[in-house]
């Protein structure tokens, strides 16, 4: 059957079980939109292409399936860029489809032309410019394969308008064949055996778990390992939910804003079992002072992460889930009798240095987040955040027990991620409560997406920790720049009126007694609700490791 390029694209997406596309139409992508009009695929029209990219990202993080976003050429495509970079840094399978000017117009600075494959070269796992309609079906298959296997990541397909409009005989491209792409799965058995030996010898083991655990669905294996060897587990921001936050062996998050007991445990450990992590600077602090006495086992699917930042004693390249299973089998050969001294030491740290904040009568953002946790812990809930203080407080005070329930921008730290991501999460998880915790700075970077939530009746709840500042930047100014608050104070709109103008419900909370009832009201509502929590203006996120310091030198 002869099909147009746009029709082939849509047919391929249907065959790949794509249920939803987040997008924004425009001239160069029109042939695709025309085909989409008849398709069995839902389209969510965001109010900005960046919103579409983040929504696809949030959808992918929550469901584990690839998220698809679409935009036209030029500004449409460049507006996706931050979202693509965000997905790249956090290894999220996003497919970005962009329109392009017709082939004969490429390279002539045509209207709405941007070299999006060139622009996204360093922020995609791979990208394609489709030059021939006969390659299109193969490219779509390859793109999904590449995005979702190995270390996941975004893949962009740039489709010139004339290619999308030209006809060809549609042929099934068959299985994907990529001779330069063979992602590892199983770990090398010898490496696994060496790791098991190190574990059996360890007196003070700590597991340092990251996004790789969540991506590979290895949370059960991780828990089994921790319980078998009685090792406490500290997670990175991306690893949150990969190990239950309320588990006795949980140390919560480590690093710059990690719990003191997490950082102390890592620094005092004699064996660090690093699982699906990349030794990011926010985790390690001063690199050469990180976990000085520890031998290191590093498990990761990406060989390039091994030895990138720290030297390791045993490296196992493979899918975390498979490797942990191999490791658990291997450990059966050892009689592991964890000593109690290490447990007791950690228990003492937890008792002496709990996460805490002062209650001085002001409305404290930490208290709001604790109340959100209290009201949602027993129901299926996903929490998306923006970036800044509220994000760190959420990571600290909301105890996530399920993988893919904490949706946050880690590597890139993208303000404006939270609301559109929450919309993507709600589309992917229609029966769950989706809460977007944000700040008064972040929310305004993509607040137009409130309209999308109202438009599609996606009942996301937006909780703004409104302190009238770009809080995290202000905190750095307070601590490291002599309280010179250069351009971090925000004059804000009336968020309640704004919510109402968009057709959402708006609530304002200024006192602690109002917190619980407002949240109850919001969580009962079937509409999108925005709550403006007017919180203490100069509250800081503690503990905090000053930049460049070892992680056991914490303020607060």
């Amino acid at each position, binding site marked *: 059957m002869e099909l147009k390029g746009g029709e082939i694209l849509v047919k391929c997406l249907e065959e790949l079980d794509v249920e939803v596309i987040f997008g924004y139409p425009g001239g160069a992508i029109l042939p695709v939109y025309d085909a989409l009009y008849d398709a069995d695929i839902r389209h969510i029209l965001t109010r900005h292409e960046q919103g579409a990219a983040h929504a696809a990202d949030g959808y992918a993080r929550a469901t584990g399936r690839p998220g698809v976003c679409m935009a036209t050429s030029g500004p449409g495509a460049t507006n996706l860029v931050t979202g693509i970079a965000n997905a790249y840094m956090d290894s999220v399978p996003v497919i970005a489809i962009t329109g392009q000017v017709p082939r004969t117009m490429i390279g002539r600075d045509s209207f709405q032309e941007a070299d999006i*494959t*060139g622009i996204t*070269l*360093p922020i995609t*796992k*791979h990208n394609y*410019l489709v*030059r021939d309609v006969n390659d299109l079906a193969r490219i779509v298959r390859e793109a999904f394969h*590449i995005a979702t296997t190995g270390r996941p990541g975004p893949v962009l397909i740039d489709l010139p308008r004339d290619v999308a409009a030209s006809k060809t005989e549609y042929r099934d491209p068959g299985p994907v064949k*990529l*001779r*330069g*792409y063979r992602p590892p799965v199983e770990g090398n058995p010898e490496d696994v055996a060496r790791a098991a030996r190190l574990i059996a010898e360890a007196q003070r083991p700590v597991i340092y778990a990251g996004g790789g655990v969540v991506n590979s669905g290895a949370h059960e294996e991780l828990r089994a390992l921790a319980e078998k060897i009685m090792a406490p587990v500290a997670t990175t921001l991306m690893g949150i939910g990969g190990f239950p936050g309320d588990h006795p062996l949980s140390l919560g998050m480590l690093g710059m804003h990690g719990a003191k007991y997490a950082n102390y445990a890592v620094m005092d450990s004699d064996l660090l079992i690093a699982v699906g992590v990349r030794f990011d600077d926010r985790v390690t602090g001063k690199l050469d002072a990180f976990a000085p006495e520890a031998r290191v086992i590093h498990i990761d699917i*990406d*060989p*390039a992460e*091994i*030895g*990138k930042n720290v030297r390791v004693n045993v490296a196992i390249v493979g899918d975390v889930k498979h490797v942990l299973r191999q490791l658990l089998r291997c450990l059966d050969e050892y009689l592991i009798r964890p000593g109690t001294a290490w447990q007791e030491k950690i228990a003492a740290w937890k008792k002496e240095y709990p996460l805490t904040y002062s209650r001085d009568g002001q409305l404290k953002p930490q208290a709001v987040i604790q109340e959100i946790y209290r009201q949602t812990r027993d129901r299926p809930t996903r929490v998306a955040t923006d970036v800044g203080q509220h994000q760190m407080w959420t990571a600290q005070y909301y105890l996530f027990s399920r993988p893919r329930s904490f949706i946050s921008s880690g590597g890139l730290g993208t303000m404006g991620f939270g609301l559109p991501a929450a919309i993507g999460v709600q589309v992917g998880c229609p029966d769950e409560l989706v809460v977007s915790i944000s700040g008064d700075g972040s929310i305004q970077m993509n607040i137009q997406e409130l309209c999308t939530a109202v438009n599609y009746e996606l009942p996301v709840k937006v909780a703004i920790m409104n302190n009238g500042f770009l809080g995290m930047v202000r905190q750095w100014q307070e601590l490291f720049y002599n309280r010179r608050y250069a351009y971090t104070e925000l004059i804000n709109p009336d968020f309640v009126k704004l919510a109402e103008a968009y057709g959402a419900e708006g609530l304002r909370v200024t006192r602690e007694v109002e917190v619980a009832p407002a949240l109850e009201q919001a969580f009962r509502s079937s509409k999108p609700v925005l709550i403006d929590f007017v919180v203490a203006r100069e509250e800081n996120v503690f503990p905090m490791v000053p930049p460049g310091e070892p992680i056991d030198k914490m303020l607060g």
Partner: protein
Amino acid sequence: MRHTLAVLVENNPGVLARVAGLIRRRGFNIDSLAVGPTNDPTISRMTIVVEGDDVVLEQVTKQLRKLIEVIKVSDLTTEEHVDRELVLIKVKADPAQRSQIIQLVDVFRAHIVDVGRETLIVEATGDEEKIRAIEEILRPFGIKEFVRTGKVAMLRGSKTTSVDGE
């Protein structure tokens, strides 16, 4: 230390930009890069000379392997190999000096590929040392123009750097 990498890539448009861009943004230094199709027209071969210690080289190699269109990366440095560069040198040569230059060029088993009224173009291939030597020898006559390719390299003996070979 300098390493010579043989990189087999898909012969697709844009693949050079991917490789060069990766090397630039990860902060690695390239000494030279040569690229051209192989006997299999779907595969191009790049010879990349990079400067760096073992840690740097390991990262370059691993990052290159992550590119979907990179099929194979081999470090030839540690094994017996031949490497060659090609230079064209335009040297001042009035009729009185010509024969002297031609004699020197013969010693290097290089060739004269163009004879002008006041210049000669010398073509030479060889390893880096030989190229440097010929440059030194010709300098006194006056080098007007100098162009060289990047290095290409190949393992000695029956070993190959191919998609299936090792």
